[in-house]
């Protein structure tokens, strides 16, 4: 009799647990959450370089292929000077990337996007090409908004 009672309790417990377990699976309407973020030290290095000259609002996103730098231009900085600074800093920190993409924002509004090959930046610094040649290699596109 006792054994039977124990079995009933066990089955009831299992059934209840099963129902709530299934409920948990079904009701877990969590949004898509990134659980495995691979944080790259180069992102911090380049961001530190930007912060050093007063660019605090910046997203640095370096992958094996490209270095993407999105920044909000501070009022006291010359836009073009900032581009040259970022290109150079990026080429120094992530020389293995193919491209450097700089997205300029002013008051959080998207402005120009500058794209350049990292090898071209290094070639300019090495003196293999002139500034005139380098400027022809820069792709500057207007805001896409």
């Amino acid at each position: 009799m006792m054994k039977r009672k124990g079995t009933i309790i066990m089955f009831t417990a299992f059934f209840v647990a099963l129902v709530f377990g299934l409920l948990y699976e079904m009701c877990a309407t969590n949004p898509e959450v990134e659980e495995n973020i691979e944080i790259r030290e180069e992102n911090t290095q380049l961001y530190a370089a930007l912060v050093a000259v007063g660019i605090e609002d910046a997203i640095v996103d370096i992958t094996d292929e490209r270095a993407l730098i999105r920044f909000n231009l501070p009022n006291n900085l010359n836009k073009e000077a900032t581009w040259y600074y970022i290109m150079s800093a990026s080429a120094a920190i992530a020389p293995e990337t193919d491209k450097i993409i700089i997205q300029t924002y002013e008051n959080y509004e998207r402005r120009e996007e500058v794209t350049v090959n990292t090898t071209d930046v290094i070639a300019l610094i090495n003196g293999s090409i002139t500034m005139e040649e380098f400027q022809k290699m820069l792709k500057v596109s207007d805001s896409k908004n």
Partner: protein
Amino acid sequence: MILLFVLLFAPYYGGTLTSVNAQQNGMSSSTSAVNWEEDKETILKVLNKVKSKEIISDKDYEKIRDALEESDSLDAFISSVDSLTVEVYLERVYESQSFKIIAGIVKWTFGNEKINIYITLENGSVLKFCADVQDAVAELKEGELPNPTINIYANEGTLRSIMESDDPFTALQVALIDGDIKYEGVGIANAVKLALTSTLSKAYGFFNPSPFEVTDEAKEIKYKGEEATLKLSPKGVRYVEFQSGIEGNDDVIIIDKYGCERGYTTKRNLKLMQTDTEELTPAAGIYTKPLSELKAENTFTEVAEIRRLMREMRNSTTSISIMNKTFYFIMKTKAFSHI
């Protein structure tokens, strides 16, 4: 042994460990001297807490503490304690606040069992421990039992996250529910028992969701003892912002599902991210140091000179000058890394 301690005693570790670098580097078996000092401190805290709760005997405490004091690396510590057998007084564990609610399930699942524990390290090797649980006492030692009734599998990253979490008990619960710590019964009866435990733990999770479980809505939580808000970034990354922030400092902390610090960004960077998320990876705009710290590090005269050139830029000569000075300065300092 340390990893086993983490697995079993994580709920007792109430301190705060904020070594983001250590976490990002993973706990390699060749831990650096600095990391070892941090690890040593953490192990000692866990050990003292365990001792204060009378979960292990004074004799075992002394043996482990001596091994810790004499070791100069994690490897050395692990080797020196591998041959030890430690008795764990489980009744003390069950009595603790953290275990009160689930003590019955834990007792029923793991009481009077022979357990093998396999911990996969980041270098691919596997640490093997076993626990012979007899009523209220568990005897832990290195190696495998020939006839286990339960096998437990975990990895180093998960255990480290539990240890470093702001709330280790919740982290342990998350790891169990999410299957980051797996357990399986040997034989049909044990397999059924463990399956039931797994289902019950999910049911428990249903009624007691982790504070770090995030939804689309902002959520009020306690983090590091302070009132904070848990949110989801535009790229689906959890972050915590403190409600009592310092004026002008809008740093936010990126955390994982265990409540461990993974990095930092700012509210303004999140705003910038929000404008267009398509081209960005999840790691975009996440840095290993907070902005407030990076600002404080900038004391180089070379930077002042570059800034002057940037303000005064008039022609291509200045552009080349900016690029050259920047390139060689950054190459030299790698953007002041690890000042």
